[in-house]
């Protein structure tokens, strides 16, 4: 579904992503893990068309990011870190705006907004300005933004950061539920969460890919049961 090939990105002299390649299969939930500053967000930003790579290529269902970015954007729902949404808009107005941009027809729009509002638990805040919402609710609006228009691929950059334990469980449930029909790539610093939800794990450290396997595979290969220890071994010295 997604093929990342020799992806490299420099910010000036700083190499953020260094020759990273991996694939994501259809219907897979992939956890992209790594310490802060490892280059995860940069990979997401290139995949979603916010940044251009210095070299390398990404193909999404045979479309490549240099020629068919608009088609790729149509397939991807993206939740950036900390869900930076327009502050002065009403939640409803915002979802309405995203639905318009996604090209959803007026008849289907209300139904879709209602469904997403229910799925993400936004019913009681739908007529509030986004500025007034707590962090958890903002994050949920961000998830609703990403799900709008039913995209095939979801890219979620730390969707559970800053949420309370209940919300983390809820968000994890949402991811699992939608993961049945969609391809998801997401990152988190809570390793148990990755353990519980994902099919495969890719670990990035200092811009380089250091692991790409199922959790079971990693455990066997490194002869280590605890995922925390595996993660530390892989990213040590950072």
């Amino acid at each position, binding site marked *: 579904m997604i093929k990342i090939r020799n992806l490299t990105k420099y910010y000036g002299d700083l190499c953020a992503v260094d020759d990273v390649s991996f694939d994501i299969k259809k219907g897979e939930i992939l956890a992209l893990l790594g310490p802060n500053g490892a280059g995860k967000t940069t990979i997401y*930003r290139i995949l*979603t*068309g*916010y*940044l*251009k790579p210095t070299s390398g290529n990404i193909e999404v269902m045979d479309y490549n990011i240099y020629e068919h970015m*608009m088609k790729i*954007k*149509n397939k*991807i729902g*993206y939740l*950036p870190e*900390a869900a*930076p*949404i*327009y*502050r*002065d*808009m009403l939640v409803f*107005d915002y979802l309405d*705006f*995203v639905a*318009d*941009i*996604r*090209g959803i027809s007026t008849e289907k729009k209300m139904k879709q907004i209602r469904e997403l509002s229910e799925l993400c638990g936004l019913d009681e805040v739908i007529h509030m300005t986004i500025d007034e919402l707590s962090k958890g609710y903002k994050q949920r609006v961000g998830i609703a*933004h990403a799900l709008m228009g039913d995209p095939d691929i979801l890219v979620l950059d730390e969707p559970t950061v800053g949420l309370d334990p209940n919300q983390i469980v809820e968000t994890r449930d949402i991811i699992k539920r939608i993961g049945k029909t969609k391809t998801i790539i997401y990152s988190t610093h809570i390793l148990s969460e990755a353990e519980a939800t994902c099919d495969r794990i890719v670990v990035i450290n200092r811009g380089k890919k250091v692991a790409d396997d199922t959790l079971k595979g990693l455990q066997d290969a490194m002869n280590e049961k605890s995922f925390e220890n595996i993660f530390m071994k892989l990213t040590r010295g950072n």
Partner: protein
Amino acid sequence: MKNIRHIFRKEFKSYFISPIAYIVISVFLIIIGWLFFSTFFLEKQANLTKFFSLLPVTFAFIIPAVTMRLFSEEINIGSYELLITLPVSFRDIILGKFLAAVAFVALMLSPTLVYALSTSFLGDLDWGPVIGGYLGAILLGASFSSIGLLASSFTRNQVVAFIIGMAICFSLTLLVDFVLFFIPNFMVDFFQFLSANLHFQNIAKGVIDLRDIMYFVSITFIALYTTHLVIEEKK
């Protein structure tokens, strides 16, 4: 193409959610009304020449205040990333925001139609220059909006965007007139051609010359195209 409409609607609406629209419109009407009417009855002439001669300078600092938030605010709070990763082209984003600013300027200008109406009661108002003046004002407003939009795409700081936009608009209106004293004769024509004020006053006389219209269209096009290059470069 359809997305231009959605961006336009969102931007135009958001002017009126925050207090900025009401403040800017009030300030504009107070300043222009006061400057215009303070000498209006002394001159004893039923025309709007004075009003239109004040417009370029007033626009030069009001319009950058209207446009300063268009990109800067988005870059600052990060919603820019959400916008860019939605399936909408740069062209549609720029045109939607630009048209929202122009529509806002037109709305801001509309209460001044009362000046024309009340002047026509006082004497024999020649409507030609008035129609020309408003046409010129929209062209001038559009080109200043595009410059303000460009300034806004440079920076995440709205104050900086405002000052850059104002500096460019002021240069186009005033500086060129001042510079004329200091430059050699053979260059006067060239510098005069750059003056937004001169082209605007031509139209405001009621003489609609294609050269004047082309001037504003070119400025707008250049500024919008440069904005496109700037946000393309940000990638």
